[in-house]
């Protein structure tokens, strides 16, 4: 009896050039300067970040740029205890939804510089940016968010 063919290899490689478009390019260029921006919907008044040039609730185009704070509030989070291939952070670490001051939808980022088991919903955090020389038009320009105490200004 002849051996069954159990495997053939058919390598596939396709390359793509992604176009961020005007609206996201504007957002990413601002990130490279240490600024976070959103778009306000003219119908529901909500501020979306990152802006995509339209309001997902109303389905209309948006164009009003709103400058946002790099401080915000944790709306929910999880603690990652799972090791996986390519992991760059030491477990356990925290991924969180962070509602930036001035925005109506949260962004996702890491929370560091504190024990994972002390993160809470409602906690105030601020962006820890990379050094000026390393700032690029992507969200890796923010290393992570870290806790802040605002008692002094209260």
């Amino acid at each position, binding site marked *: 009896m002849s051996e069954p063919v159990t495997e053939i290899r058919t390598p596939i490689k*396709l390359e793509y050039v*992604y176009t961020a*478009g005007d609206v996201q390019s504007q957002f990413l260029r601002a990130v490279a300067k240490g600024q976070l921006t959103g778009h306000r919907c003219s119908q529901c008044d909500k501020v979306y970040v990152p802006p995509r*040039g*339209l309001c997902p*609730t109303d389905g209309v185009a948006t164009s009003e740029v709103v400058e946002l704070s790099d401080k915000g509030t944790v709306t929910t989070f999880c603690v990652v205890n799972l090791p996986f291939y390519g992991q760059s952070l030491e477990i356990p670490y925290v991924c969180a939804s962070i509602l930036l001051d001035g925005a109506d939808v949260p962004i996702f980022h890491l929370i560091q510089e504190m024990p994972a088991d002390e993160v809470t919903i409602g906690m105030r955090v601020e962006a820890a940016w990379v050094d000026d020389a390393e700032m690029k038009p992507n969200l890796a320009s923010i290393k992570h968010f870290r806790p802040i105490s605002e008692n002094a200004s209260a």
Partner: protein
Amino acid sequence: MRDVAIVSFAQATNLRRNTERDEVGILQPVVAEAVEKSGVKRDEIGFTVSGSCDFLAGQPFSFVMALDVLGAWPPIQESHVEMDGAWALYEAYVRLQHGDIDSALVYSFGKSSPGDLLDVMVLQLDPYYTAPLWPDSVSVAALQARALLESNGHSERDLAEVAVRSRKNAKQNPKAQVAGDFDVDALLAEDYLVSPLRKHDCPPISDGAAAIVLATGDLAKRVCERPAWIRGIDHRIESHSLGARDLTTSPSTALAGEKAGVGDGPVDVAELHAPFTHQELIIRDALKLDDNVQINPSGGALAANPMMSAGLIRIGEAASQVMSGNAKRAVGHATSGPCLQQNMVCVVEGD
């Protein structure tokens, strides 16, 4: 069967490479225009269905992003086909037959520019025996063109004439990408791209989007002066294996055309989805369209070929001819797969 009509159609300006907008950004004004022109209110639309392909964008579930253009709140009934939007329109037509809703929004979108389209198209071929050889989409079409030219007396001049007429018609189409007056002899003097095909035999590579609103009986009459009633719609598919088919004919188009009732009355206009010049000749034969039929007044896919939308656009253009009063009865055709593997035929009529 419930009467269903196309009551509005919109499409994006087709561009070789749209650097200002992503897929969703191209789509948003197109959907907004189609809905506004339809006279159907957004909250009256009972069903929404789209056609697109992740291989164009190079990212999984890329169609989910497009939901942002709908204002999907409160949550809506929605569906998606990984096909040309013409097949989304078919799903919407069937959905409207259920009888509980009276209108549907159909849209499609895609940027062909992010990847190398000729290679991306290879992935629709048989993955074990054909795709590993990486025959690009123009080469696959050229196999069909050669078979046609050798079989029935068609010449390369016939193909060039299709290109010249398409580009001339496209001068009237503000959304077209390739338009103008060309000379058959001058085109034939150009080099082959992949023999027997020259550049003019091939479609442009296009970024684009399209949208159509469907409405049933009384609603269609209320919102539209001349609804384009869908009197017949059918789609048929042939074997995936190129070698198993006679590439010089299109039995699936012929059967779909018969079932859709193309021959039941005179056809004023036909919008045929023929990305390559020789494919128009094959489709015309399959649908038995005579010389009185105006073919592709829009310029067809040779004037603009936004992947996943070019078929839906043919149906939209055919319907536009009826809605504008230019035609009493029109045929829209859409194709999918290599060498006209799968074909849809839609007959639209005015009152």
